[in-house]
């Protein structure tokens, strides 16, 4: 009895070991290094030199605009993704013929196999002067500029992050007990109120997962704004790239990175609260 409990424990430890080592080496240790850097000073030639100062954190307002732009981009981009993703996920889970479902899902995931840089670069050409505007000029719409506009950035974000939004919503809709929909209709609810009261509510965990996934990735986004927005709007991701790779001010960059991690955690906590509050607490089970 004692021996089997020990074996059971050992097995648990062994199974968890790879993930633990991975997290410690690639998440915890780098984070500790960043925290240490963030209380240091920039060396005269750039980089880091040891110190203990809060000066970097005191300097955070110097990137206030970048933080502000990011805190607007992340939710706006995530909600734009949601608006496009929900109908697609709904169709896939509840309307698409069974035999097509797998193929359609694969079609959504396949673009992920190409790097985001490549796909975003392709959009630069599609939206650039020799792409869509050239086609539009054939039907008389002249001198339309699409590239380097806020709309181009939003399009790039929706395109790039759509699968991350569709998949969790699809999963939660697919698990939906159809009998609840019939019950709602039998009890006299109109389609719209069935959708809002039953479908949407029960798929909220998926919606919140999708929103927080996309929002957290958008908090660090820098590629799409610089390629499709012409680098004219400065996000916190762009500020980080400049601080580490251009001015080589690692301590200030680290302080911003620590702050960004903190903001991401807050976003996650809020998303989790909202999700359990509105759906989890009222989970209905017919069986």
């Amino acid at each position, binding site marked *: 009895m004692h021996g089997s409990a020990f074996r059971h424990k050992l097995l648990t430890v062994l199974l968890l070991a790879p993930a633990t080592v991975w997290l410690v080496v690639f998440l915890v240790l780098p984070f500790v290094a960043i925290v240490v850097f963030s209380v240091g000073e920039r060396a005269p030639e750039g980089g880091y030199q040891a110190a203990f100062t809060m000066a970097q954190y005191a300097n955070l307002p110097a990137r206030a605009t970048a933080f502000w732009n990011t805190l607007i981009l992340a939710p706006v981009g995530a909600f734009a993704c949601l608006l496009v993703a929900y109908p697609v996920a709904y169709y896939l889970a509840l309307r698409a013929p069974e035999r097509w479902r797998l193929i359609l899902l694969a079609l959504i995931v396949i673009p992920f196999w190409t790097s985001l840089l490549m796909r975003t670069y392709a959009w630069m050409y599609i939206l650039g002067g020799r*792409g869509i505007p050239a086609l539009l000029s054939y039907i008389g719409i002249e001198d339309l500029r699409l590239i380097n506009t806020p709309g181009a950035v939003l399009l790039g974000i929706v395109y790039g992050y759509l699968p991350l939004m569709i998949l969790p919503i699809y999963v939660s809709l697919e698990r939906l007990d159809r009998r609840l929909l019939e019950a709602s209709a039998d009890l006299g609810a109109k389609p719209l109120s069935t959708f809002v009261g039953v479908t949407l509510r029960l798929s909220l965990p998926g919606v919140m997962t999708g929103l927080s996934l996309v929002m957290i990735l958008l908090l660090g986004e820098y590629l799409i704004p610089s390629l499709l927005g012409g680098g004219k709007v*400065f996000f916190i991701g762009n500020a980080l790239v*400049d601080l580490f790779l251009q001015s080589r001010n690692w301590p200030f960059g680290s302080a911003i990175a620590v702050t960004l991690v903190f903001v991401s955690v807050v976003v996650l906590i809020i998303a989790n609260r909202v999700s359990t509050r509105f759906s989890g607490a009222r989970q209905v089970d017919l069986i």
Partner: protein
Amino acid sequence: MSKSYRDGLPITSEEFVSQLMRLKRGSIGRRDFLGLTGLGIATAVLGRELGLSPTPVNAAENLGDRMSIATWPNYHDPATFENFTKDTGVAVQVNVFGSNEEMLAKLQAGGSGWSLYVPTNYTISTYKKLDIIEPLDMSKLGNFDSKSEDGRFTAEGAIDGVVYAVPKNWGTTGFAVNTKKLAKPMTTWKDFWDVAMAEGDGRTMVHDYQLTTIGNALKYFGFSFNSLKSDELAKAEELLIKAKPHLFAVSSDYQPPMRAGDAWMTMCWTNDGAQLNRDIPDIAYVLGKEGGEIWTDFYAIPKDAPNKPAGYALLNYLMNPQVAVKEHLANGAPSTDARVNALLPKEVLDNPILYPAADLLSPLEFGAAATLTDPARAELMARFKSA
């Protein structure tokens, strides 16, 4: 000078297909095809991994069988490295970088594995201060001739009489204008900024690089390109922030939008200016009369180079004028070596983009190390970008 890693692929798909067709028709040989498309280099690198590389024939010194170089995109004739491999048995692995700062960060972190790299003038003193650059043993560089080099360029490679780097090529930072869209003749940085806020509204690009963007804004007022004076920087900042809403983009990847006609005017480095003008003659390259930047890219060897003998051997090989001339024809930047200039075709030497008139060159300034590492300029750039 910073170059974006996307400055253009080594070969476009159209060009690749047309070369392939030429190969099929037999109008070029297989070797030319490999050289022109860059496939040869790729094969050489793969061949090394598979152990297919030729064995050294008569190497005086043991050069090993591989080395690695850090350089800029589109900066070499791929055939150069292939021929070096053929002669010495040393396969060359090429790493391309987006900016001097990235190169510096990688080398500073250690274990870069490079035996040769291509820093720009203003970073050499920083490498020296960090003690990560090798003082060159000139006896191993028989092909280098300081007498045939332009002293203006070699000076930037030496510190206290010790040579740390020898010049690869030089260039300038001016601006490119699509003269079909912006017909008004422009000759100064004042023109550049004024037109950017008027006729060129929404069609002008500036570099995503503080050295040149702030430097060229300083030139609007006639201040030094390298100024660190706070009152002068404040005026430059005012101009930059006033111009910001009129800009098409803040980006160093300006070739695609200039070619597509989305952008009409951009800050521009020599070699890009020459390439744009070669393909689209309506695009002119202008050097601001007030001055601006002149730069030189150098070859240097890191202190921790894993294969110094091969690094020296390749550097010496690249200093051979017969080899260097092909490099210049491939990357389009002007040469610092009179022996190379003597071999270049007349139309290259007569190209005012590559070899501008002396009166345009004399006011130009080399970027200074202090300009690049100055925190005040970095913060100014961040304020400009977030405005």
